[in-house]
């Protein structure tokens, strides 16, 4: 690991989460006073199906070093199958950003049910740690532009 790269690095992470599962789990994690990485910022949507890949690219563009999408477990979607759509988009989007030179680990999708407060902590921490170890994101537009 490149020491200089990660030393003192505070990753910028956006978690776009479903209102019905992860958002509630995060509330519960709060009530249970579970401590986790402060670098993950939650942005709420009603369903992971609302997550437009443009939002993910937008987040990267505006300084996110990692983007997390959280939804209900397969089969548990409050809107029947929004999470399936999120998942299919995620798979294609991951392939695309990888091609664009972004480490695919910077984009992660996790299923966290309303009851899984401990998993909020676990997932947020592990993602923050992963992003920390990857270092700051250099966008293609920045990379190697010496003009």
């Amino acid at each position, binding site marked *: 690991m490149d020491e200089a790269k990660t030393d003192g690095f505070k990753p910028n992470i956006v978690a776009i989460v479903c209102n019905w599962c992860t958002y509630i789990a995060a509330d519960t994690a709060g009530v249970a006073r579970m401590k986790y990485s402060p*670098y993950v910022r939650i942005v709420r949507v009603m369903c992971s199906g609302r997550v437009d890949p443009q939002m993910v690219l937008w987040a990267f563009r505006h300084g996110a070093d990692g983007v997390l999408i959280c939804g209900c477990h397969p089969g548990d979607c409050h809107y029947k199958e929004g999470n399936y759509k999120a998942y299919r*988009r995620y798979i294609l989007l991951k392939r695309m950003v990888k091609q664009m030179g972004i480490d695919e680990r910077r984009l992660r999708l996790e299923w966290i*049910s309303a009851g899984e407060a401990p998993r909020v902590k676990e997932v947020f921490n592990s993602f923050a740690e992963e992003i920390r170890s990857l270092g700051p994101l250099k966008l293609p537009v920045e990379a190697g532009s010496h003009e």
Partner: protein
Amino acid sequence: MVDEPRIGVYVCHCGRNIAGVVNVAEVAEYASKLPGVVVARDYMFMCSQGGQQLIQDDIRKYRLNRIVVASCSPNLHEKTFRRAAKGAGLNPYNVHMANIREQVAWVTEDPEEATEKAKALVRGAVERVKHHEPLEEKKVPVKDKVLIVGAGIAGISAALVCANAGKTVYLVEKEPSIGGMMARFDKTFPTLDCASCILTPKMNEVASHPNIKLLTYSEVVDVEGYVGNFKVKIRKKPRYIKEDLCIGCGDCVEACVFKNPRFYPKPDEWSLGLKRRKPIYIPFPQAVPRVAVIDPEACVYLKYGKCAQTCVKACSRNAIDFTQKEEIIDVEVGAIILATGYKTLDLRKLPQYGYGKYPNVYSAPEVEVLLNASGPTGGEVVLRDGRKPESIAIIHCVGSRDEKYKKYCSRICCMAALKLAHLLHERTGAEIYEFYIDMRAFGKGYEEFYRRVAGEGVHLIRGKVSEITDAALTPEEEGKLIVRVEDTLAGAIRRIPVDMVVLMPALEPAVGSRELAKLFGVSVDENSWFMERHPKLAPVASLTDGVFLAGCAQGPKDIPDSVMQAEGAAGQALALIDKGYVELEPNIAYVDEEKCSGCRICVGLCPFGAIEFDEERGKARIVEALCKGCGTCAASCPSAAIQQNLFKDQQVMAEIKGVLAAMRGG
């Protein structure tokens, strides 16, 4: 942006809850400098009357048109602040909350990091709210009927309250009789009331109530719609008995071709397999409806197509009908109460207690049936080999309070165990040993009951049993079940040989409750119990509007608590119905016709069929009443023509940009 934003930002201390970690003054100071922000303040309790007044005064004084409240989760107080804004003449949807309590103060160790994160969330909210615009709530009339799923004591209690208030109730029960778990009990704690004396009248009242449509042997198979307007499909399984003709005389059961109890084809469900039953049966003597059922998996005629049909001949009312088919019943209701109850942990998952291996190890529900006067032994306590036990061990917390099984306390076992101790001692005179970790006798009259049972000479041993074994060390132990325990009060190890062991298994959600949760769109907690909206402030509401929770479906509860919650849920359902209408959160999607290209991508994506395609005009249209506001269509519209109120592209992206800008020290 619709108009020039004039934003007010309100940072809540929440007492020490937020201010103890987050530097709220610094956050407010930061917010005050953000473009568009006219005023930013911090205040002790934003949700208090004073806090709301502060916002209202500012709206008037500074002509604010957007409000950001940085406090707790919107799940708690979004409505409060929207109402406050409305009171000052501002459209309530121009308010947005930043959750700096649950998502910041309570989960962040370092105060500086917490303050930074709070700033980021506030910045996100400020950027977002600039793109908010006034929205109208939609008022929808409510159907004045109630669906109650599960007819144990909770479902029955809720049904009676609703029915007595004049509402039509559909009470759905998957078993052939209502009554649930309680119908198996002989006595209830702490009063030692005869369970059937208090339950049976209620069951009969349900059966005869003009407002209750009782659907036993039935299951909900589909739920559509939303609060106030649910469309529900119920499948009624065939009993092969005409319910309206059968008078429950039992002649058919008597006449069935199976004669020898040893060869009855199925273990009896109600008595938990302590006896066997015929293919045609009445679930138990007090069953409601008192109507026979034919089990198609066991009935010789239904299985093989050939039988003497002695039952048919015996029925004087010609009630047997082998041609019966399952029925689908459609109902429309305004409110739903889920009262699907619990089951007990499968004791085979704890091989250390020898359940299923040693015949004299019983589960508590089995002992309840054994004690029941209507049970297989007529209430006499005899072991499987016919002996009367002379010593009995009752073990608490089997699978409860245990990381490896259920972390939670199952709440009812201490009292149930004391009750069993009393009853077993009373019926057998046996020496009773009770092994507990902590004696939890918290309810009204419970402590008194505990002392009473203790006074009866039950050996109360504080220590968790690790194992039941038949490996005897001494002649006295031969042929017995040996309980090895640390008597933690004596600080010594004891080996106690007994004839009978009763395990108090942990409670867990009823079979199929996860599927049910999906069907009704309610959330479950980490242990799969239905999740209440808030443990204190909204304990009977689920997270889905219009669906309420009652009894053990929400978590382990004893009878008084189940009934209490059931009547509470009934009250909530009635309040909803009697209001006559509901206001729907306007977060539905809409099509900007100017932009719609008519590509039809959206039409197939809506899980609720809420998108119609107008062939003539070549435009998609969203049927507001069907849209539930997930936003899938908005995410997928290639023309950006579909947007979702409160979650428009601009709004979400502005929020993302905002939280990130603050994180980068912006």
